[in-house]
């Protein structure tokens, strides 16, 4: 427990100290929201009701979660590069708690960033249900746990930062499109839809869409438990894999 708190605290200190990085991470979601939102003005997704931006915004929140969480996990590699990981790994605390501390820190920073974008999206015309915010936060927390864990796993397996661009192109972007962030997945060809249903982000976005707009692809009583189970699975997997790695 102690280690989880200490690592969380470190993440918070670094977060508040790197304002420029935080602001720049908000730029891309805001560009997507303003250009796609205004560009597709008057277009509406069948069934979703209202303007496209109402469909789009929860998807963009999902995009932000996907990017910032995966990177939060992968930053373990940067710690390794700077040697700081060794300091953490020789401390008399369990490796699992080190992984959990990372996840706690990363979910918190992701939550803060996502809520900032949500607030800004209302200025851009996103009309959402305020009472849906607690459920949205839960979905952010769970989805973020999934992708930080995946980031940690990638960082444990991958040796060098050279693979970084590879991950962005072959993992993050495909997931982003598959998860129905921009378009309803029901429009995809069927084999692609299967892939969509394999992505945890699909469920995260769907829960947020339900919470904020009332529209969703599947009942929240199905998507939320699936999201919960995948979060638990990935967190446990990352803690396990992290425990097994040696520090070079």
């Amino acid at each position, binding site marked *: 427990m*102690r*280690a989880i*708190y*200490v690592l969380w*605290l*470190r993440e918070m*200190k*670094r977060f508040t*100290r*790197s304002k420029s990085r935080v602001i720049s991470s908000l730029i891309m979601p805001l560009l997507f929201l303003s250009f796609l939102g205004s560009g597709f003005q008057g277009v509406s997704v069948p069934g979703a009701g209202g303007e496209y931006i109402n469909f789009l915004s929860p998807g963009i929140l999902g995009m932000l979660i996907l990017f910032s969480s995966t990177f939060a996990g992968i930053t373990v590699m940067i*710690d390794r590069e*700077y*040697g*700081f*990981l*060794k*300091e*953490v*790994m*020789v*401390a*008399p*605390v*369990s490796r699992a708690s080190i992984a959990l501390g990372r996840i706690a820190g990363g979910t918190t920073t992701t939550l803060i960033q996502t809520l900032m974008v949500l607030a800004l999206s209302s200025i851009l015309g996103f009309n959402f249900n305020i009472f849906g915010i607690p459920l949205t936060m839960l979905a952010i927390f769970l989805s973020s746990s999934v992708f930080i864990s995946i980031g940690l796993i990638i960082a444990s397996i991958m*040796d060098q930062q050279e693979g970084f661009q590879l991950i962005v192109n072959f993992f993050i972007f495909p997931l982003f499109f598959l998860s129905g962030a921009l378009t309803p997945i029901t429009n995809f060809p069927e084999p692609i839809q299967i892939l969509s249903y394999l992505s945890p982000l699909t469920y995260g976005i769907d829960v947020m869409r339900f919470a904020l707009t009332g529209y969703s692809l599947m009942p929240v009583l199905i998507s939320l438990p699936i999201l919960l189970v995948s979060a638990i699975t990935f967190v446990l997997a990352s803690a396990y894999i992290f425990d097994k790695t*040696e*520090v*070079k």
Partner: protein
Amino acid sequence: MESIVIKDLTKKFKEFTAVDNISFKIKKGEVFGFLGPNGAGKTTTIKMLSTLFNPTSGEAKVNGFDVQTQRDDVRKSIGIVFQETALDVQLTGRENLEFHGMMYGVPKDKRNKKIDEVLKLVNMEDKANIIVKKYSGGMKRRLEIARGLIHNPEVLFLDEPTLGLDAQTRRRIWDYIKELNKKEKITIFLTTHYMEEADFLCDRIAIIDNGKIIARGTSKKLKNLLGGDVISLEIKKTPGKLKKMLETCTNCKWIKKVKAHNNHLSLTVQNAETKVTKVLKLAEKAGIDIISVSIRKPSLEDVFIHFTGKTIREAKPENFQMKMMAMRRGH
């Protein structure tokens, strides 16, 4: 009492053996040095003793705890300063120390007291609130040594503590280490490839090369193994004549040992000052051109040459790069 007991410890990375069946004991309060070239297996040994690597075979106990089955107890007993910096450069010096204290479960009031204490020990009180990114190499190293002491470890590991530092900073860090060992009675295990460092700091030294310990003892004892002073001749390379000279020298009773190495000839004799002229005559007879002559009291470098037939700088294995890559890739 023993702080560290190592028995038949081995670490293999695929087909490459980094540490080959080493055994030794380190007494409590001792400064013990691992002297050897890069790639000899020094860091790998430290990583096994600090639980970062799992040994392939053999066993090791630190402060009475097994490094494989009692990892947490081992980690609580040790402080470690790595070869490369292991600081969070985005935090201040004090925050790095706080992080460490918290991770090791040092309670708050005790932690603050200890942090002030260690900062004073390394003369960094006034730099503590600056972000580490702005520190010089020497400051970082001093901060790391300070950090290693916060949780009152029984054993302190220093992996090449002065690598890449200027002479002045090196000297200061040596003084800190000496003082630390005297004041806190802490056991120190350090690795180095600097002869002077091992000589100055260590109570006992183990010379390691290619993963094997080739000699062990106090600096004095190791030097005595050589049997006297060394007269070193720098000569023009003439293989046939050199061979003759070697033969003549081997037949002289007053020459204890003779070794040729590139264009250097090392003769071990008692009271070298009185033997120089004799040596010069021998060389003249053999027809060897001498470029320079020097007399040395034996150094650890000579000890190293004696045991390995090469200088410590040459000892870098040719496939060192390959080995490092194998280490990074596979376990």
